[in-house]
């Protein structure tokens, strides 16, 4: 049973999510990976080293949904599975592709139980659906955070395909978040801040702690709406889904839409003035107190303990 995976990438670099998607689907069969970019060379090279990859296909073009749909629907006939990560590109194109092929997709998969049995969360992660898909072909998105990354050491062949397809849509501007912190969706440690931070300047306390720990920075929707953090830092039902080994939640109440994004976290630490906050109640370790006093002290203590 053959699998086609659409690679995620940014600024010519392969996204860490892709290695996890490849590992996730490699039990289903040999995996070909499609890289669509104006210059796919370096990205394809990184993909080819991943275990489980049979072949890397490269196509020139952009990742706007309508053109990707045409490209993918042309390739799909050769595969039993087409999969992508449940990031913004996968969410944009996979349902569109499925409808074009008259198939019902299975998205946000967090566990593959067999060749056609999958688990996916619903209701902000408050319930888990087990579905069987008896269609001829399976169109999937997977949550990268639910899978471990594929090993490296492979040297799969790279083959260019004729893929330039025009899009009716046109990209006119990108407003990217400049940050040198790790990828939020796949980070091992995440430090998240809530509306309690009070301003974008104060939010740097969160960034400082994250920097100390080599962690990614996250935020609640309320913090993003207030302008303290950019939208791509939002964790939750409608933001990014994270599954770090350690999540440190600071000044975050733990609304169910936020909890939806952190269910995969192995350990949770909460710092909050309110001992009754839902997040404090489910944290592995909680410290009750004012974050403005706690965070600077915590950073200096960590400086002594973790050089």
């Amino acid at each position, binding site marked *: 049973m053959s699998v086609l995976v659409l690679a995620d990438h940014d600024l010519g670099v392969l996204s860490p999510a892709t290695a996890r998607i490849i590992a996730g689907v490699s039990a289903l069969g040999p995996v070909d990976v499609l890289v669509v970019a104006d210059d796919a060379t370096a990205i394809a090279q990184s993909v080819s080293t991943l275990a489980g990859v049979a072949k890397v296909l490269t196509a020139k073009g952009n990742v706007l949904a309508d053109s990707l749909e045409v490209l993918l629907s042309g390739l799909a006939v050769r595969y039993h599975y087409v999969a992508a990560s449940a990031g913004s590109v996968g969410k*944009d194109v996979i349902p569109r592709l499925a409808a074009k092929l008259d198939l019902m997709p299975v998205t946000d998969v967090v566990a593959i139980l067999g060749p056609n049995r999958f688990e996916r969360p619903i209701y902000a992660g408050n319930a*888990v659906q087990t579905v069987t898909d008896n269609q001829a072909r399976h169109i999937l998105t997977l949550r990268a955070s639910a899978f471990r990354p594929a090993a490296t050491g492979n040297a799969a062949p790279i083959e260019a395909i004729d893929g330039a397809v025009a899009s009716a849509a046109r990209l006119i501007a990108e407003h990217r978040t400049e940050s040198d912190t790790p990828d939020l969706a796949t980070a091992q440690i995440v430090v998240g801040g809530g509306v309690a931070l009070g301003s974008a300047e104060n939010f740097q306390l969160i960034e400082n702690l994250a920097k100390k720990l080599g962690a990614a920075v996250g935020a609640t929707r309320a913090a993003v709406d207030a302008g303290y953090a950019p939208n791509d830092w939002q964790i939750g039902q409608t933001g990014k889904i994270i599954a770090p080994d350690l999540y440190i939640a600071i000044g975050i109440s733990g609304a169910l839409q936020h909890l939806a994004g952190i269910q995969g976290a192995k350990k949770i630490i909460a710092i909050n003035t309110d001992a009754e906050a839902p997040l404090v109640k489910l944290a592995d*370790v909680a*410290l009750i107190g004012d974050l403005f006093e706690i965070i600077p002290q915590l950073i200096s203590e960590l400086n002594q303990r973790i050089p």
Partner: protein
Amino acid sequence: MKILVAIKRVVDHNVRIRVRPDGSGVETTGVRMSMNPFCKHAVEAAVQLSEAGHGDEIVIVSIGPKVANDVILTALAMGAHRGILIETDAALETLAIAKLLAKVVAEENPDIVLLGKQAVDDDSNHVGQMLAALTSRPQATFASEIKVTGQSLEVTREVDTGRETISVPLPAIVTADLRLNTPRNAALPMVMKARSKPLAVRTGAEFGVDLVPRLTVEKISPPAERVAGKTVGSVSELAAYIASEVSQMEAL
């Protein structure tokens, strides 16, 4: 310009849902229902476009049981002009929903179709994209800003790396993110007026679309429970805990 907005009636987003012990689904009887929040942003966007002189008519369509009338009335009270309820008691998959909506698009021929980016019950985030495929229209999903520029839309989208602005020629499909706007609460006179606005009730069957589910839902289970932890008394204790966790982490 004509704007079609598709909306869904779902368990209210503030309700903590309960999974039925027999695994057959999520308890919905006696549970507060309301318009899916993202759909509300879509309706608000349509009303704002219309107020800015870009929409002559806003048509609301919802697919669901008879009681889904209430969310259509809410949308009419917000400023939409007429509603269509495609009545069905079946739990339809997103593909079937998109196929029904594609029929409505063929009948109504709107310039813009607005939808919420996802419904907070199944969390699918499919319907706009599927409708775009079935109607061969360009799409702009996860919109946080919409501008009309002649015969196209400039849409700012929330993506993994921040935001991006794309231009899509009309007719197009747009799905709304939460930061697109702040939905209005309709004043009582508007709610009264909504009742006299036209609302057509149709049946799923009359569209001649295959509505049979493609996936079999085996069971619905509650997520794994977390065990409650402990509270530490000082920053040093917390620092010690973090340092020990970090030292135990296996390298990726």
